[in-house]
């Protein structure tokens, strides 16, 4: 059977033949060759398969190397981002005003908490201002694995909670916004929410300018700080003097502004009572509103600078006389001066003695159309905004007839924000160029040529009048004088409109000023809301006795800080 031949009966001899030896060799050789061929094919197949596999790997490597990683990372991060890393905010000299710091937030895992009451009770011992019932509810549902207890613990509080060693409590580091200066410039800085997203003021501006990165861990921003035009020292000096003025004259509120008349940079912007950027409840306190940029007021006689400027601009001589002895009767209304001059006054004297009748006559001389166009040209009645947000639009009179023209000439009937008023005034002082108010520090001169709104001659005349109003005792602003510095300005006392007309005992006392007058660099605006008569003021509540001396105190305090030394 070994050779595979089956021997069957009947087939013996003949049928059964011994194979030839040559045949055998031939067959073996054939089989061998066939086997070799099959082997080679198999090897080729294997090589091809391996080669393909290697090619795939190589191709994949090239693809990965060319594609890179970051795109994938963003895809993973974006939906998970829970907080925002914000750059620092610094003042014009690089002093820190707002910064992100990492704080610990207390979280709980209700699933592993066994005794909710014990946790709540013991937490109360170190965080007494927690609401016990609220905590108890937060950790009541044992199917949950996560609950916030308190976000943004101070390091000391976190340590105390940690020392309690309570099970099921943990800390999660988070970014928190810190304002080392407290309330200072609170209205300008604005507000961020619990996830560090800017909602108001400069903080919101940061978000809008895409300077804020979404992060899902406590990683600090690496972006350069935002440099404001504010000067922390000047800001504080203004706030401090305004607080002192509020106390001294029993005023309900106060506003102060220091602006570079040429660049529009705001060095200090204060509205008291102030706002703490981290106390959200204070935003709902109407008394703490930003009176500088969000409240519109009839500002009174400080408007006479516009009235005089318009007269000069249209070629009126400062020496032209107007008869202000009589009542001014317009459309059935009678305008009179508080202290009538008793003689005809020149344009200059109308400004210096702050005659309402005189201002009305000047405005009527220019006419209602011209007045409207002039105020618009100055930017007083057009929308205006800063980086800290929109400035409240001016409230224009519904009907702008002759009587409105007269009342607007001395600052009634047209309500504007103090900030917009000051910005429009800057053009009267700086030689006649339009400025845009800004809270950002400007570097170098702007490439755009300044836009002229009034002639340099008109500006010179207005500067002269403002200077004289403070320098001579005949002026209403002499109490704003500062020894060694030539300060100029205009007072304004406006009765506040209430139910059923104006309240004579309730006024806004304002002073618009500038210094040094020979080449003005800074504009000041001080408004005191509802100041009371005191012994010091002889019972008066007019701006000359309160807003003017407050301005003097502010200027003498900030001029060394601004590098202006008294002569």
């Amino acid at each position, binding site marked *: 059977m070994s050779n595979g031949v089956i021997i069957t009966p009947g087939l013996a001899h003949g049928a059964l033949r011994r194979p030839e030896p040559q045949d055998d060799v031939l067959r073996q050789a054939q089989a061998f060759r066939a086997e070799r061929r099959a082997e080679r094919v198999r090897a080729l197949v294997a090589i091809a398969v391996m080669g393909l596999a290697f090619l795939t790997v190589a191709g994949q490597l090239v693809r990965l190397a060319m594609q890179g990683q970051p795109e994938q990372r963003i895809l993973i991060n974006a939906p998970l981002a829970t907080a925002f890393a914000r750059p620092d905010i610094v003042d014009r000299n690089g*002093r*820190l*005003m707002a*910064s*992100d*710091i*990492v704080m610990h937030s207390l979280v709980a895992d209700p699933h592993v908490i066994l005794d909710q009451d014990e946790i709540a009770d013991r937490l109360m011992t170190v965080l007494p201002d927690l609401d016990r019932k609220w905590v108890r509810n937060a950790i009541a549902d044992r199917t949950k694995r996560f609950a916030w207890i308190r976000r943004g613990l101070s390091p000391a509080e976190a340590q105390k909670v940690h020392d309690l060693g309570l099970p099921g409590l943990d800390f999660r580091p988070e970014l928190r916004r*810190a304002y*080392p*200066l*407290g309330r*200072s410039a609170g209205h300008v800085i604005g507000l961020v929410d619990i996830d560090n997203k800017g909602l108001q003021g400069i903080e919101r501006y940061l978000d809008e300018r895409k300077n804020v990165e979404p992060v899902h861990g*406590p*990683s*600090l921003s690496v972006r350069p700080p935002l440099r404001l035009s504010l000067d*922390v*020292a000047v800001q*504080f*000096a203004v706030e*401090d003097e305004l607080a002192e003025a509020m106390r001294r004259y029993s005023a309900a509120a106060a506003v102060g502004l220091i602006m570079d008349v040429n660049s529009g940079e705001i060095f200090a912007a204060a509205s008291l009572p102030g706002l703490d950027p981290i106390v959200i409840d204070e935003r709902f306190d109407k008394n703490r509103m930003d009176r500088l940029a969000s409240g519109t007021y009839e500002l009174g006689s400080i408007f006479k600078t516009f009235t005089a400027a318009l007269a000069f601009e249209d070629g009126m001589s400062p020496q032209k006389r107007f008869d202000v002895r009589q009542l001014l009767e317009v459309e059935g209304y009678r305008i009179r001066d508080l202290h009538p001059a008793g003689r005809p006054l020149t344009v200059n004297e109308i400004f210096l003695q702050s005659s309402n009748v005189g201002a009305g006559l000047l405005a009527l001389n220019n006419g209602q159309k011209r007045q409207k166009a002039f105020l618009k040209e100055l930017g007083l009645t057009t929308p205006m905004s800063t980086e800290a947000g929109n400035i409240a639009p001016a409230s224009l009179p519904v009907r702008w007839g002759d009587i409105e023209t007269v009342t607007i000439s001395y600052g009634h009937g047209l309500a504007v924000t103090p900030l917009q008023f000051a910005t429009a005034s800057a053009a009267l002082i700086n030689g006649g160029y339009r400025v845009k108010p800004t809270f950002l520090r400007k570097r170098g001169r702007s490439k755009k040529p300044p836009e002229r709104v009034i002639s340099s001659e008109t500006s010179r005349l207005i500067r002269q009048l403002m200077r004289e109003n403070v320098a001579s005792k005949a002026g209403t602003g002499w109490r704003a004088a500062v*020894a*060694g510095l030539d300060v100029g300005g205009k007072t304004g006392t406006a009765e506040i409109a209430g139910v059923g007309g104006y309240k004579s005992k309730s006024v806004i006392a304002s002073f618009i000023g500038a210094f040094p007058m020979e080449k003005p660099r800074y504009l000041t605006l001080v408004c005191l809301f509802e100041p009371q008569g005191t012994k010091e003021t002889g019972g008066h509540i007019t701006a000359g006795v309160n807003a003017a001396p407050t301005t003097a105190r502010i200027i*003498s*305090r900030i001029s*060394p800080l601004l*590098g202006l*030394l*008294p*002569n």
Partner: protein
Amino acid sequence: MRILLTVAVAMTLGSAFTLYAVNYETRGLADDVKRREKSINKARRDIAILKAERAHLARPDRIGRHARALGLAPAKRGQFATYSISDPTGRRVTRRLGDER
């Protein structure tokens, strides 16, 4: 042929060991980088807190209070000295301290 094979095997083994070593070194370096990054982050957080604390301590109302308690007051006229220097053309000019600002 046999020599070639031996050399190839030796090279394979050699590169395997090298790769192994490099791999471990890389992991070590990656750990090191991670550790350093962590310490950098910690340092940056600490710096942020210290900067905020310094700004809080140096806030004008606090400095002003302390300065007044020490008998200091805002600068007044007469406290600023004048000095005279040569300008680039060699002319003597009188300046006041603070003018250079």
